[in-house]
Protein backbone atom coordinates (compact mmCIF):
# COMPACT_ATOMS: atom_id res chain seq x y z
CA UNK A 1 0.00 0.00 0.00
CA UNK A 2 2.66 2.48 1.07
CA UNK A 3 4.78 1.62 -1.94
CA UNK A 4 1.73 2.16 -4.12
CA UNK A 5 1.17 5.60 -2.70
CA UNK A 6 4.84 6.54 -2.98
CA UNK A 7 4.83 5.37 -6.56
CA UNK A 8 1.70 7.23 -7.47
CA UNK A 9 2.71 10.59 -6.02
CA UNK A 10 5.22 11.36 -8.77
CA UNK A 11 2.80 9.99 -11.37
CA UNK A 12 0.34 12.65 -10.45
CA UNK A 13 2.76 15.30 -11.54
CA UNK A 14 3.41 13.81 -14.94
CA UNK A 15 1.23 14.36 -18.00
CA UNK A 16 0.49 11.72 -20.55
CA UNK A 17 2.99 13.08 -23.00
CA UNK A 18 5.86 13.21 -20.56
CA UNK A 19 7.86 10.01 -20.71
CA UNK A 20 11.19 10.87 -19.15
CA UNK A 21 12.19 11.11 -15.52
CA UNK A 22 11.91 14.31 -13.61
CA UNK A 23 14.37 14.33 -10.75
CA UNK A 24 14.40 10.53 -10.27
CA UNK A 25 17.70 9.71 -11.91
CA UNK A 26 17.37 7.04 -14.53
CA UNK A 27 13.99 5.73 -13.42
CA UNK A 28 11.41 6.09 -16.15
CA UNK A 29 8.00 7.20 -14.99
CA UNK A 30 5.55 4.79 -16.55
CA UNK A 31 3.26 6.12 -19.20
CA UNK A 32 0.96 3.36 -20.29
CA UNK A 33 -0.52 3.62 -23.73
CA UNK A 34 -4.05 4.96 -23.75
CA UNK A 35 -6.47 3.55 -26.28
CA UNK A 36 -6.97 5.78 -29.27
CA UNK A 37 -10.74 5.55 -29.62
CA UNK A 38 -11.93 6.02 -26.07
CA UNK A 39 -12.24 9.47 -24.59
CA UNK A 40 -12.14 8.55 -20.96
CA UNK A 41 -11.75 5.59 -18.67
CA UNK A 42 -14.67 4.24 -16.68
CA UNK A 43 -13.59 6.45 -13.81
CA UNK A 44 -11.41 9.55 -13.67
CA UNK A 45 -7.70 8.86 -13.81
CA UNK A 46 -7.01 9.89 -10.22
CA UNK A 47 -9.80 7.63 -8.99
CA UNK A 48 -8.52 4.74 -11.05
CA UNK A 49 -4.95 5.15 -9.89
CA UNK A 50 -6.02 5.05 -6.29
CA UNK A 51 -8.93 2.64 -6.30
CA UNK A 52 -8.76 0.36 -9.31
CA UNK A 53 -7.77 -2.59 -7.13
CA UNK A 54 -10.82 -2.02 -4.94
CA UNK A 55 -13.13 -1.98 -7.95
CA UNK A 56 -11.60 -5.19 -9.25
CA UNK A 57 -11.70 -6.96 -5.89
CA UNK A 58 -15.33 -6.07 -5.41
CA UNK A 59 -16.27 -6.86 -8.97
CA UNK A 60 -14.69 -10.28 -9.02
CA UNK A 61 -16.94 -11.45 -6.22
CA UNK A 62 -19.98 -10.02 -7.97
CA UNK A 63 -19.04 -11.82 -11.18
CA UNK A 64 -18.17 -15.20 -9.74
CA UNK A 65 -20.77 -15.42 -7.02
CA UNK A 66 -23.67 -13.50 -8.57
CA UNK A 67 -23.01 -13.71 -12.28
CA UNK A 68 -22.63 -9.97 -12.88
CA UNK A 69 -20.67 -9.79 -16.10
CA UNK A 70 -21.75 -6.70 -17.99
CA UNK A 71 -20.49 -4.09 -15.55
CA UNK A 72 -18.08 -1.30 -16.16
CA UNK A 73 -15.51 -2.75 -13.80
CA UNK A 74 -15.16 -5.98 -15.71
CA UNK A 75 -11.54 -7.06 -16.14
CA UNK A 76 -12.38 -8.23 -19.63
CA UNK A 77 -13.52 -4.69 -20.34
CA UNK A 78 -10.21 -3.29 -19.09
CA UNK A 79 -8.25 -5.53 -21.39
CA UNK A 80 -10.45 -4.91 -24.41
CA UNK A 81 -9.69 -1.23 -24.13
CA UNK A 82 -6.16 -1.15 -22.76
CA UNK A 83 -4.69 -4.12 -24.55
CA UNK A 84 -6.80 -4.81 -27.59
CA UNK A 85 -5.31 -7.34 -29.93
CA UNK A 86 -4.47 -5.62 -33.17
CA UNK A 87 -4.35 -7.57 -36.36
CA UNK A 88 -0.86 -6.69 -37.45
CA UNK A 89 1.38 -6.36 -34.42
CA UNK A 90 2.22 -8.95 -31.85
CA UNK A 91 0.06 -9.05 -28.78
CA UNK A 92 1.69 -7.59 -25.69
CA UNK A 93 1.68 -10.02 -22.80
CA UNK A 94 1.92 -9.24 -19.11
CA UNK A 95 5.55 -10.35 -19.00
CA UNK A 96 6.33 -7.57 -21.44
CA UNK A 97 7.18 -4.41 -19.47
CA UNK A 98 5.11 -2.41 -21.95
CA UNK A 99 1.90 -4.17 -20.97
CA UNK A 100 -0.62 -1.66 -19.68
CA UNK A 101 -0.73 -3.11 -16.18
CA UNK A 102 2.92 -4.11 -16.07
CA UNK A 103 4.19 -0.59 -16.63
CA UNK A 104 2.86 0.89 -13.42
CA UNK A 105 3.03 -2.25 -11.37
CA UNK A 106 6.70 -2.74 -12.16
CA UNK A 107 7.33 0.88 -11.24
CA UNK A 108 5.37 0.65 -8.00
CA UNK A 109 6.88 -2.75 -7.27
CA UNK A 110 3.53 -4.33 -6.54
CA UNK A 111 3.28 -7.88 -7.76
CA UNK A 112 -0.09 -8.94 -9.09
CA UNK A 113 -1.19 -12.45 -9.94
CA UNK A 114 -4.33 -11.65 -11.93
CA UNK A 115 -2.81 -12.80 -15.19
CA UNK A 116 -1.78 -16.17 -13.86
CA UNK A 117 -5.41 -16.99 -14.61
CA UNK A 118 -7.00 -14.11 -16.49
CA UNK A 119 -6.49 -13.27 -20.14
CA UNK A 120 -4.02 -10.38 -20.35
CA UNK A 121 -5.29 -9.19 -23.71
CA UNK A 122 -8.56 -8.42 -25.43
CA UNK A 123 -10.31 -10.70 -27.83
CA UNK A 124 -8.57 -10.96 -31.18
CA UNK A 125 -10.35 -11.54 -34.45
CA UNK A 126 -8.64 -14.87 -34.89
CA UNK A 127 -9.67 -16.00 -31.46
CA UNK A 128 -13.17 -14.68 -31.93
CA UNK A 129 -13.67 -17.04 -34.80
CA UNK A 130 -13.17 -19.88 -32.35
CA UNK A 131 -16.42 -18.95 -30.71
CA UNK A 132 -19.79 -19.46 -32.29
CA UNK A 133 -21.57 -16.71 -34.12
CA UNK A 134 -23.92 -16.07 -31.22
CA UNK A 135 -21.13 -15.78 -28.73
CA UNK A 136 -19.15 -13.51 -31.02
CA UNK A 137 -21.92 -11.01 -31.44
CA UNK A 138 -22.54 -11.10 -27.73
CA UNK A 139 -18.87 -10.53 -26.97
CA UNK A 140 -18.65 -7.54 -29.32
CA UNK A 141 -21.65 -5.80 -27.84
CA UNK A 142 -20.96 -6.70 -24.22
CA UNK A 143 -17.90 -4.62 -23.63
CA UNK A 144 -19.48 -1.26 -23.33
CA UNK A 145 -19.54 0.90 -20.26
CA UNK A 146 -23.08 0.00 -19.39
CA UNK A 147 -24.60 -1.31 -16.25
CA UNK A 148 -25.57 -4.92 -15.82
CA UNK A 149 -28.58 -6.26 -17.61
CA UNK A 150 -31.29 -7.00 -15.12
CA UNK A 151 -33.67 -8.86 -17.35
CA UNK A 152 -31.53 -12.00 -17.62
CA UNK A 153 -31.62 -12.64 -13.90
CA UNK A 154 -34.75 -13.64 -12.12
CA UNK A 155 -34.40 -12.07 -8.69
Amino acid at each position, binding site marked *: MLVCLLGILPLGSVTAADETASGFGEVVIPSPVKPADASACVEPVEVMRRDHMKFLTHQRDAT*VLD*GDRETKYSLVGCMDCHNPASTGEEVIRYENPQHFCAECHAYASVKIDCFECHADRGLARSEQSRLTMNAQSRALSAHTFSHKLDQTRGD
Partner: protein
Amino acid sequence: MATELDNIELRPARRKFLKSAAALATTLIAPGIILYKTGHASNTSSKNPRWGLLIDTNALSESDVDACVNACQREHGWESDPDSRTDAQWIRKVKLTDTESGHQRFLPMMCMHCENPPCVDVCPTGASFKRDDGIVLVNKHTCIGCRYCMMACPYKARSFIHEPLKDQLPVAPRGKGTVESCTLCVHRIDRDGGNAVPACAEAVNQGDRKAIWFGDLHDPQSEISQRLHALGAVKLRADMGLNPGVRYQGI
Protein backbone atom coordinates in the same frame (compact mmCIF):
# COMPACT_ATOMS: atom_id res chain seq x y z
CA MET B 1 -39.19 -25.89 61.37
CA ALA B 2 -42.63 -25.47 59.92
CA THR B 3 -41.31 -23.36 57.08
CA GLU B 4 -38.77 -26.04 56.18
CA LEU B 5 -41.49 -28.66 55.95
CA ASP B 6 -43.53 -26.32 53.83
CA ASN B 7 -40.59 -25.85 51.49
CA ILE B 8 -40.00 -29.57 51.25
CA GLU B 9 -43.60 -30.16 50.27
CA LEU B 10 -43.61 -27.27 47.83
CA ARG B 11 -40.49 -28.43 45.98
CA PRO B 12 -42.03 -31.46 44.28
CA ALA B 13 -44.97 -29.32 43.27
CA ARG B 14 -42.67 -26.67 41.89
CA ARG B 15 -40.71 -29.28 40.00
CA LYS B 16 -43.89 -30.71 38.54
CA PHE B 17 -45.00 -27.27 37.45
CA LEU B 18 -41.68 -26.52 35.75
CA LYS B 19 -41.69 -29.89 33.98
CA SER B 20 -45.17 -29.47 32.61
CA ALA B 21 -44.46 -25.88 31.62
CA ALA B 22 -41.40 -26.98 29.71
CA ALA B 23 -43.34 -29.77 28.04
CA LEU B 24 -46.07 -27.35 27.03
CA ALA B 25 -43.59 -24.86 25.66
CA THR B 26 -41.85 -27.56 23.65
CA THR B 27 -45.06 -28.83 22.13
CA LEU B 28 -46.00 -25.31 21.15
CA ILE B 29 -42.63 -24.38 19.65
CA ALA B 30 -41.54 -27.68 18.12
CA PRO B 31 -44.04 -27.78 15.27
CA GLY B 32 -43.05 -24.23 14.43
CA ILE B 33 -39.39 -25.19 14.24
CA ILE B 34 -40.15 -28.24 12.13
CA LEU B 35 -42.34 -26.30 9.76
CA TYR B 36 -39.72 -23.56 9.51
CA LYS B 37 -37.01 -26.08 8.70
CA THR B 38 -39.02 -27.95 6.09
CA GLY B 39 -40.05 -24.68 4.56
CA HIS B 40 -36.42 -23.75 4.04
CA ALA B 41 -35.17 -27.23 3.25
CA SER B 42 -36.17 -27.69 -0.35
CA ASN B 43 -36.20 -25.08 -3.05
CA THR B 44 -38.00 -27.17 -5.61
CA SER B 45 -40.87 -24.80 -6.00
CA SER B 46 -38.96 -21.59 -5.39
CA LYS B 47 -38.70 -18.88 -7.97
CA ASN B 48 -35.03 -19.64 -8.59
CA PRO B 49 -34.35 -21.56 -11.76
CA ARG B 50 -32.28 -24.70 -11.59
CA TRP B 51 -30.27 -25.28 -14.73
CA GLY B 52 -29.76 -28.82 -15.88
CA LEU B 53 -28.82 -30.96 -18.82
CA LEU B 54 -30.57 -33.95 -20.29
CA ILE B 55 -28.34 -36.10 -22.47
CA ASP B 56 -29.91 -38.66 -24.77
CA THR B 57 -27.18 -41.24 -25.28
CA ASN B 58 -29.30 -43.08 -27.85
CA ALA B 59 -28.86 -40.12 -30.15
CA LEU B 60 -25.13 -39.72 -29.64
CA SER B 61 -22.55 -41.40 -31.78
CA GLU B 62 -18.89 -41.48 -30.88
CA SER B 63 -18.12 -38.59 -33.20
CA ASP B 64 -20.95 -36.59 -31.63
CA VAL B 65 -19.38 -36.96 -28.22
CA ASP B 66 -16.02 -35.99 -29.68
CA ALA B 67 -17.69 -32.87 -31.02
CA CYS B 68 -18.97 -32.07 -27.53
CA VAL B 69 -15.50 -32.29 -26.12
CA ASN B 70 -13.99 -30.21 -28.91
CA ALA B 71 -16.65 -27.54 -28.53
CA CYS B 72 -15.94 -27.21 -24.83
CA GLN B 73 -12.22 -27.00 -25.53
CA ARG B 74 -12.72 -24.24 -28.08
CA GLU B 75 -15.11 -22.32 -25.87
CA HIS B 76 -12.95 -22.33 -22.77
CA GLY B 77 -9.44 -22.67 -24.13
CA TRP B 78 -8.34 -25.95 -22.62
CA GLU B 79 -6.59 -28.82 -24.33
CA SER B 80 -5.79 -32.32 -23.27
CA ASP B 81 -3.11 -34.63 -24.53
CA PRO B 82 -4.61 -38.16 -24.53
CA ASP B 83 -1.59 -39.63 -22.76
CA SER B 84 -1.35 -36.95 -20.14
CA ARG B 85 -2.38 -37.73 -16.60
CA THR B 86 -2.20 -34.11 -15.53
CA ASP B 87 -4.00 -32.24 -18.31
CA ALA B 88 -7.39 -30.88 -17.33
CA GLN B 89 -10.53 -32.34 -18.82
CA TRP B 90 -13.75 -30.46 -18.20
CA ILE B 91 -15.75 -32.97 -20.26
CA ARG B 92 -14.73 -36.36 -21.49
CA LYS B 93 -15.95 -39.08 -23.80
CA VAL B 94 -16.82 -42.25 -21.93
CA LYS B 95 -17.19 -45.60 -23.66
CA LEU B 96 -19.43 -48.09 -21.91
CA THR B 97 -19.41 -51.78 -22.72
CA ASP B 98 -22.02 -53.93 -21.05
CA THR B 99 -20.21 -56.85 -19.41
CA GLU B 100 -22.91 -59.36 -20.23
CA SER B 101 -24.28 -58.32 -23.59
CA GLY B 102 -21.30 -56.52 -25.04
CA HIS B 103 -23.47 -53.58 -26.03
CA GLN B 104 -21.47 -50.36 -26.42
CA ARG B 105 -22.40 -46.75 -26.21
CA PHE B 106 -20.68 -43.40 -25.82
CA LEU B 107 -21.61 -40.50 -23.62
CA PRO B 108 -20.09 -37.21 -22.49
CA MET B 109 -19.35 -36.83 -18.80
CA MET B 110 -18.84 -33.55 -17.05
CA CYS B 111 -19.64 -31.99 -13.70
CA MET B 112 -23.06 -33.21 -12.63
CA HIS B 113 -23.98 -29.95 -10.87
CA CYS B 114 -25.50 -31.83 -7.97
CA GLU B 115 -28.13 -30.37 -5.72
CA ASN B 116 -26.17 -31.70 -2.73
CA PRO B 117 -22.62 -31.49 -4.03
CA PRO B 118 -20.02 -33.32 -1.94
CA CYS B 119 -17.35 -31.03 -3.38
CA VAL B 120 -19.08 -28.03 -1.83
CA ASP B 121 -19.41 -29.80 1.50
CA VAL B 122 -15.71 -30.57 1.80
CA CYS B 123 -14.12 -27.38 0.50
CA PRO B 124 -12.36 -25.78 3.49
CA THR B 125 -12.55 -22.22 2.21
CA GLY B 126 -15.92 -22.39 0.52
CA ALA B 127 -14.32 -21.80 -2.87
CA SER B 128 -16.31 -24.70 -4.26
CA PHE B 129 -19.84 -23.40 -4.11
CA LYS B 130 -23.29 -23.81 -5.58
CA ARG B 131 -25.05 -20.80 -7.03
CA ASP B 132 -28.71 -20.14 -6.38
CA ASP B 133 -29.47 -21.32 -9.90
CA GLY B 134 -27.87 -24.70 -9.24
CA ILE B 135 -24.57 -24.27 -11.06
CA VAL B 136 -21.63 -25.63 -9.07
CA LEU B 137 -18.48 -23.60 -9.56
CA VAL B 138 -15.03 -23.05 -8.16
CA ASN B 139 -14.28 -19.52 -7.02
CA LYS B 140 -10.66 -19.53 -8.10
CA HIS B 141 -9.95 -16.40 -6.11
CA THR B 142 -10.36 -18.33 -2.88
CA CYS B 143 -9.30 -21.80 -4.00
CA ILE B 144 -6.13 -22.83 -2.16
CA GLY B 145 -5.53 -25.87 -4.33
CA CYS B 146 -5.89 -28.53 -1.63
CA ARG B 147 -7.71 -30.92 -4.03
CA TYR B 148 -10.00 -32.24 -1.34
CA CYS B 149 -12.98 -31.61 -3.65
CA MET B 150 -11.34 -33.88 -6.20
CA MET B 151 -11.16 -36.62 -3.60
CA ALA B 152 -14.81 -36.12 -2.74
CA CYS B 153 -16.33 -35.93 -6.22
CA PRO B 154 -18.10 -39.19 -7.05
CA TYR B 155 -17.82 -38.50 -10.79
CA LYS B 156 -14.19 -37.43 -11.08
CA ALA B 157 -15.44 -34.22 -12.61
CA ARG B 158 -12.71 -31.92 -11.38
CA SER B 159 -9.22 -31.21 -12.63
CA PHE B 160 -6.25 -29.55 -11.02
CA ILE B 161 -4.00 -27.26 -13.04
CA HIS B 162 -0.53 -28.74 -12.79
CA GLU B 163 1.49 -26.15 -14.68
CA PRO B 164 1.59 -22.42 -15.48
CA LEU B 165 -0.87 -21.59 -18.26
CA LYS B 166 -0.79 -19.13 -21.09
CA ASP B 167 -3.35 -17.90 -23.59
CA GLN B 168 -6.37 -18.16 -21.39
CA LEU B 169 -9.60 -17.04 -22.98
CA PRO B 170 -11.38 -14.06 -21.44
CA VAL B 171 -14.49 -16.12 -20.68
CA ALA B 172 -12.57 -18.82 -18.84
CA PRO B 173 -9.86 -17.66 -16.45
CA ARG B 174 -7.84 -20.64 -15.34
CA GLY B 175 -4.45 -20.90 -13.65
CA LYS B 176 -1.86 -23.06 -11.96
CA GLY B 177 -2.64 -24.36 -8.53
CA THR B 178 -6.43 -24.14 -8.62
CA VAL B 179 -9.15 -26.66 -9.34
CA GLU B 180 -11.70 -26.36 -12.11
CA SER B 181 -14.52 -28.20 -13.77
CA CYS B 182 -17.38 -27.77 -16.20
CA THR B 183 -19.19 -24.47 -15.57
CA LEU B 184 -22.30 -25.37 -17.60
CA CYS B 185 -21.13 -22.45 -19.75
CA VAL B 186 -22.13 -20.07 -17.00
CA HIS B 187 -20.85 -17.08 -18.98
CA ARG B 188 -23.47 -17.84 -21.63
CA ILE B 189 -26.20 -18.42 -19.04
CA ASP B 190 -25.45 -15.14 -17.29
CA ARG B 191 -26.01 -13.29 -20.56
CA ASP B 192 -28.90 -15.26 -22.07
CA GLY B 193 -30.61 -17.03 -19.19
CA GLY B 194 -32.92 -19.78 -20.37
CA ASN B 195 -32.10 -19.10 -24.00
CA ALA B 196 -28.47 -19.98 -23.49
CA VAL B 197 -27.06 -23.12 -25.04
CA PRO B 198 -23.93 -24.69 -23.51
CA ALA B 199 -21.17 -25.29 -26.03
CA CYS B 200 -21.45 -29.09 -25.82
CA ALA B 201 -25.17 -29.01 -26.54
CA GLU B 202 -24.67 -26.51 -29.34
CA ALA B 203 -22.19 -28.86 -30.99
CA VAL B 204 -24.59 -31.79 -31.25
CA ASN B 205 -27.92 -30.05 -31.67
CA GLN B 206 -27.68 -29.39 -35.39
CA GLY B 207 -30.75 -28.38 -37.31
CA ASP B 208 -33.80 -30.28 -36.13
CA ARG B 209 -31.84 -32.91 -34.28
CA LYS B 210 -31.51 -32.55 -30.56
CA ALA B 211 -29.44 -34.81 -28.34
CA ILE B 212 -28.68 -32.59 -25.36
CA TRP B 213 -31.34 -30.47 -23.75
CA PHE B 214 -30.53 -27.52 -21.51
CA GLY B 215 -33.12 -25.79 -19.42
CA ASP B 216 -34.74 -24.99 -16.12
CA LEU B 217 -35.50 -28.10 -14.11
CA HIS B 218 -37.71 -26.07 -11.78
CA ASP B 219 -39.96 -24.95 -14.61
CA PRO B 220 -42.47 -27.67 -15.46
CA GLN B 221 -43.16 -26.00 -18.81
CA SER B 222 -39.57 -26.01 -19.99
CA GLU B 223 -38.58 -28.37 -22.76
CA ILE B 224 -36.24 -30.31 -20.51
CA SER B 225 -38.86 -30.80 -17.80
CA GLN B 226 -41.44 -31.94 -20.31
CA ARG B 227 -39.06 -34.42 -21.83
CA LEU B 228 -38.11 -35.70 -18.39
CA HIS B 229 -41.76 -36.07 -17.54
CA ALA B 230 -42.46 -37.99 -20.72
CA LEU B 231 -39.46 -40.25 -20.94
CA GLY B 232 -37.71 -40.18 -17.57
CA ALA B 233 -33.96 -40.22 -17.12
CA VAL B 234 -31.19 -41.78 -15.10
CA LYS B 235 -29.04 -40.00 -12.52
CA LEU B 236 -25.56 -41.41 -12.20
CA ARG B 237 -24.82 -42.91 -8.78
CA ALA B 238 -28.37 -42.06 -7.79
CA ASP B 239 -28.06 -44.06 -4.59
CA MET B 240 -25.82 -41.34 -3.18
CA GLY B 241 -28.76 -38.97 -3.02
CA LEU B 242 -26.96 -36.04 -4.63
CA ASN B 243 -29.71 -35.24 -7.16
CA PRO B 244 -27.45 -34.26 -10.06
CA GLY B 245 -28.63 -31.67 -12.54
CA VAL B 246 -27.16 -33.62 -15.46
CA ARG B 247 -29.22 -36.63 -16.38
CA TYR B 248 -28.93 -39.34 -18.99
CA GLN B 249 -31.31 -41.30 -21.15
CA GLY B 250 -30.42 -44.64 -22.64
CA ILE B 251 -28.30 -46.18 -19.90
